[in-house]
């Protein structure tokens, strides 16, 4: 081979100064130009550390023990100046919110070029070209904080692409995007690779990435690369429980495994015979101070036994809607009733004993010195007895798979673990209704499947509602789907009814998944939606 490889990793290991065990061990990797390489793995497998070694943040910003080397265009990263690295490797972080610096889109995209000291005219031209290429020229003069999640992701990407790197490293770029935006982002990645860029994409949503036909797939586990091969070989080499594979692969693989236990959700609801709604929205309208109305005439009941998935595009008003149920927002028109009482007359703390609300971002609530104290905070505020609190805390810890971490400071944990602590903190309150805003964001597939399963089987909840971008969560776990768009409920019904209409899905920036398709195909036989593992044992092989 005559051309120098854009990226070579040789015998790379790294241990953070504060940790005992290495985060990555003996990584070897050579990338060819013009390829999309998918790097999959559960959280904590070392993918973020590998990225930091490639983009030079290790050893510059993160100290520790580094052995082996990383070569960019044949030059060692540790010996290159930052300005040079940033032109060789562009990194887009998982959460665009953590990456965007500029207050206006134009400035954000120009930031790197300004730092490199380019001429103004040249910067303007490059910025305009980059925006046009990503089809976001219309955002040029918008303030960055007013953009939707999908728009932010594209702007963050533009800021990196403007520097014209040879290698693009994407760390879970799909996490905050609605399915249609995710699809657009992936198509764009494919185009960039076809034009000569090398793309290393870290993502556990393997199914979505396979659609753009990556040239190569890597699978990491415990800091090592366990599989390095072609997409066609995944089914045999990658555990379908660890990352999200297409339904047909799971169907084939799971048939050999024992039948998964059937989920029987919401036992508490079954035992209750009272049929008054738990939460009622009556003609609810809501607008912020600026006078702009965000919700328009919402009518909705949450009843015992409901497991509701709220779907809809970025910025549709889902979170605004749900915040009304716990009284954090009060309607400007109409009424919200919780247990028959108007939220205008209730404090949030009073509602909290009936309705538990898990916020999107765990970092806004964790404060205690240990996980145990963190989890005891809610029940203590609700004046539960010490014995009951002890029981509630240990049960919550079990459900989110954090047993053994009771004495760990939540603030020292990884993002995925923190998210699970934040969910456990609400579970420990044993409210009758559980509301979760994107419970799976930033979580790996294996973990969220496990805790969603456990939460649904808890004996305490009478109803559950969760906001999600993941249609498969709705397919597997919900018995009712609420589609929200532009501040209105556009569809409300059983998953099989609401999700069947493909035109409606597309109109709401949703994309049918292979699991949804498989369930729809087999519906005449099953009469119910199942997970891929569940389907595997209910439908004929090869069907």
């Amino acid at each position, binding site marked *: 081979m005559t051309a120098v490889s854009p990226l070579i990793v040789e015998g790379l290991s790294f241990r953070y100064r504060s940790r005992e065990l290495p985060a990555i061990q003996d990584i070897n990797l050579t990338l060819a130009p013009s390829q999309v390489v998918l790097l999959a793995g559960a959280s904590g497998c070392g993918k973020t550390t590998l990225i930091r070694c490639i983009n030079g943040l290790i050893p510059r910003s993160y100290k520790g023990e580094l052995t082996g080397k990383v070569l960019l265009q044949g030059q060692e990263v540790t010996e290159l100046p930052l300005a040079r690295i940033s032109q060789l490797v562009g990194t887009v972080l998982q959460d665009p919110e*953590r990456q965007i610096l500029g207050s206006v889109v134009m400035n954000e995209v120009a930031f790197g070029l300004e730092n490199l000291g380019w001429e103004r005219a040249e910067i303007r031209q490059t910025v305009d070209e980059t925006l046009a290429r990503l089809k976001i020229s219309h955002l040029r003069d918008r303030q*960055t904080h007013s953009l939707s999640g999908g728009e932010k992701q594209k702007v963050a990407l533009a*800021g990196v692409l403007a520097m014209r790197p040879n290698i693009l490293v994407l760390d879970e770029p799909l996490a905050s995007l609605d399915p249609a935006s995710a699809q657009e982002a992936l198509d764009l990645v494919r185009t960039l690779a076809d034009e000569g860029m090398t793309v290393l994409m870290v993502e556990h949503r393997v199914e979505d990435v396979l659609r753009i036909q990556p040239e190569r797939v890597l699978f990491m586990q415990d800091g090592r690369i366990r599989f390095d091969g072609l997409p066609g070989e995944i089914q045999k080499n990658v555990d379908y429980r660890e990352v999200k594979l297409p339904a047909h692969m799971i169907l084939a693989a799971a048939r050999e495994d024992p039948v998964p236990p059937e989920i029987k959700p919401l036992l508490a609801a079954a035992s209750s015979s009272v049929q008054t709604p738990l939460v009622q929205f009556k003609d609810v309208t809501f607008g912020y101070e600026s006078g702009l109305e965000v919700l328009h005439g919402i009518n909705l009941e949450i009843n015992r036994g409901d497991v509701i998935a709220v779907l809809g595009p970025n910025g549709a008003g889902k979170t605004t809607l749900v915040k009304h149920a716990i009284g954090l927002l009060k309607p400007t028109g109409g009424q919200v009733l919780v247990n028959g009482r108007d939220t205008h007359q209730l404090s*949030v703390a009073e509602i909290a004993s009936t309705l538990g609300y898990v*916020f999107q971002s765990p970092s806004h609530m964790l*404060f205690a010195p240990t996980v145990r104290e963190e989890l005891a905070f809610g029940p203590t505020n609700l004046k539960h007895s010490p014995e009951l609190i002890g029981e509630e805390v240990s049960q919550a810890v079990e459900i989110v798979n954090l047993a053994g971490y009771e004495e760990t400071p939540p603030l020292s944990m990884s993002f995925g673990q923190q998210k699970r602590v934040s969910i456990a903190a609400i579970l420990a309150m044993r409210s009758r209704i559980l509301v979760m805003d994107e419970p799976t964001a930033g979580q790996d597939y294996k973990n969220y499947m496990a805790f969603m399963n456990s939460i649904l089987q808890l004996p305490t909840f009478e109803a559950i509602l969760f906001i999600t971008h993941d249609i498969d969560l709705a397919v597997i776990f919900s018995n009712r789907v609420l589609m929200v768009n532009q501040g209105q409920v556009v569809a409300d019904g059983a998953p099989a009814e609401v999700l069947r209409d493909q035109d409606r899905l597309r109109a709401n920036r949703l994309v049918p998944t292979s699991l949804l398709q498989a369930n729809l195909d087999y519906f005449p036989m099953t009469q119910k939606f199942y997970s891929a593992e569940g389907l595997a044992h209910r439908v004929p092989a090869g069907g």
Partner: protein
Amino acid sequence: MLVTWRYKPRKSLIQSFDPRAWIIFYACFLATTVLFWDFRYQAALFIITLITVLTSGIKFNEMKRAWIFIGGFVIFFSLLTFLTGRGGVELYKEEHLITRLAANFTILGWRPTLTITAEKIMYAVTMLVRVFSLASMTILIPYSLNPAHYGITFRGLGLPDKVAYGMDLTMRFIPSFGRDFMLTRDAQRARGYELEKITGGLFATVRKLAPLIVPVTIHAIVGSEDIIDAMDLRAFGVGPRTWLEQLKYRKRDRLLIAFGILLLALSVGLSLLAFGKFWVPQFLLALAR
């Protein structure tokens, strides 16, 4: 992620100037205001403030919260100085008693008494006007300065690249901190935490505030680490930086700067000549006789 203040392009006096010119004028104005204790001088400066506020094009509704907060704060402290007479003592040596109001009850042998003197009244009034000028001129800035220009404004005022960008981030940190605080408060209220019900001594109160203070602080620290990483990844600080935005002084900007500097120079001169000291009008003194 950093959010910005509620800036909007408006047709207004303040926005018709180059931001650097306005910042220089603002600094001169602040220094001038601080120099004087004479109500007549303060009234003249207050007129400048009033003109700026009324021509700012910012609707009262947009600034309502800031006004209520600062207004409440200023009035409370002016009232406090008036009731206790504290603070003014350095400015005047003798006081002219207008009236003395004594309560018709005693607390443990102490009879609450309010002595109203000409000096106390003037001190409180002057203080009120003075602080209102300072506060009003300050609140207008975040509403009127284009966030895209923060960096270049400070760079244009002579700060080095790194410091100027740092100032840009700092300006935006304040509203971002406010947003984080609100999010944390909401998240804790959803866990049954009631800020209103906190009681106990100072130590106990601080302890009970931990659920608010800790996440907000940690978020700020982690947030700044993210910012540093993001800046490093895009080659910040590797050499002299190009600032995409450009600012140009026009005639009116030079005039404003000249006016500001002249105002300050004149004020320094006057105050060196002992003008503008604490002043009590004759009619108040007459009341005291």
